[in-house]
């Protein structure tokens, strides 16, 4: 009798095991790959740091940073990214460490196309995987250094292995569990191969408060690829304003407002810069335009208007 009562528990456990294996189905993405991508890519000259115990974070980051021209070893990076109590490294610490070494940490879109585009563009991709043959919560970082579309494989530097080949479905299953997190670390004057305007500018803006010089270089590079990009113009304007140069800030905000006549934020910041320059009439005109455009930051525009009205 006692044994029978355990049957549902066993069934539940079995379900759990199966669920763990099957909930995340591989994406059928092969069809969506751009035809321009080469059939086989294998990056040459990627440094290899065989991983010591629990040190896959420092090893993987040292790989992509070294490849992008930063002379660092996993030992150098361990204090910056490895957290002893977690026996591992957090994604945010990898991102912070890349910023410290003046590289833009760019999280690629969670797709096979973005991963392959980066490799074809010459950037190894640091990926988060969940590894283990059964139900597993062992998180692991590896670096994808190549792919072979004809064989349906990706090639990784992973742990102690210099060239681990995984079939796409196997790799994708392990990658999907970590929300297909993939990171490239590129110099700020060179944009990631798969960068989209929106995602790249968001990720650069995120580091602007902590690494303004790095953000500045990346905004300049963005404008070269995408002239008139709103985020880059606002970023350069805000950086100039923060350096107490409202004159330069105003030129960037004017350019932004001219190229994006529906961007209230550009007019608000232009109004602030004009106010800082003591040009009250121009400030009034700009803030009226911002207020007429409205949008999610309308309250800030109203405060700007009040500030302008209160100015002598």
């Amino acid at each position, binding site marked *: 009798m006692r044994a029978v009562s355990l049957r549902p528990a066993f069934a539940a*456990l079995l379900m759990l095991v199966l669920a763990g294996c099957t909930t995340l189905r591989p994406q059928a993405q092969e069809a969506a790959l751009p035809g321009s991508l080469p059939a086989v890519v294998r990056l040459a000259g990627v440094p290899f740091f065989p*991983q010591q115990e629990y040190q*896959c*974070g420092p090893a993987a980051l040292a790989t992509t940073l070294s490849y992008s021209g930063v002379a660092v070893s996993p030992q150098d990076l361990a204090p910056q990214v490895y957290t*002893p109590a977690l026996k*591992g490294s957090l994604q945010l610490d990898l991102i912070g460490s890349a910023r410290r070494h003046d590289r833009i940490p760019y999280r690629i879109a969670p797709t096979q196309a973005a991963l392959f585009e980066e490799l074809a563009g010459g950037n190894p991709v640091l990926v988060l995987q969940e590894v283990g*043959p059964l139900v597993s919560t062992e998180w692991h*970082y590896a670096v994808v250094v190549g792919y072979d579309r004809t064989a349906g494989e990706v090639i990784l530097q992973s742990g102690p292995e210099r060239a681990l080949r995984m079939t796409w479905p196997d790799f994708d299953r392990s990658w999907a569990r970590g929300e297909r997190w993939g990171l490239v670390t590129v110099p700020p004057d060179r944009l990631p191969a798969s960068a989209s305007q929106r995602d790249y500018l968001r990720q650069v803006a995120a*580091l602007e408060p902590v690494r303004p010089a790095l953000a500045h270089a990346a905004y300049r590079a963005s404008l070269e690829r995408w002239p008139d990009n709103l985020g880059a113009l606002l970023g350069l304007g805000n950086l100039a304003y923060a350096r107490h140069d409202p004159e330069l800030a105003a030129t960037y905000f004017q350019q932004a407002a001219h190229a994006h006549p529906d961007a209230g934020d550009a007019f608000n910041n232009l109004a602030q810069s004009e106010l800082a320059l003591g040009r009250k009439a121009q400030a009034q005109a700009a803030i009226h335009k911002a207020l007429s455009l409205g949008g999610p930051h309308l309250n800030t525009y109203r405060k700007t208007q009040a500030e302008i009205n209160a100015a002598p």
Partner: protein
Amino acid sequence: MKNNNFIANTLMALLCMGMLAATTLAHGEMIGTQQAVQASDSQDKSTIDRFITREDVQKKLQDMGLSAVVTAQRIALLNDDEARALAEKINAMPAGGNFSSLSTNDIIILMLGAILLVLIL
């Protein structure tokens, strides 16, 4: 003595609140780049506790076995939202570390399965 402590604590609390207010007002009525390029319906922001300070984050990291110097250096590379996210979710975030063919969890599941099988049979 007690009174002194109370005053000190109140001062400390006021100081902390002041520091937070100072960070939010630092840019006057400018729209920050992050604010401008973020999706207006960004869910991450609304779920993060605005009253977590960088000192709280530092303490959490120090509890993880890191020195004050190292934690300060790490937090200095994260923006306010990232630092708060770290403090709130540190125990739920994946921390990549190991490379093994059979994880501890796998072994536990296998053992549980074996025990159940023995009981059922």
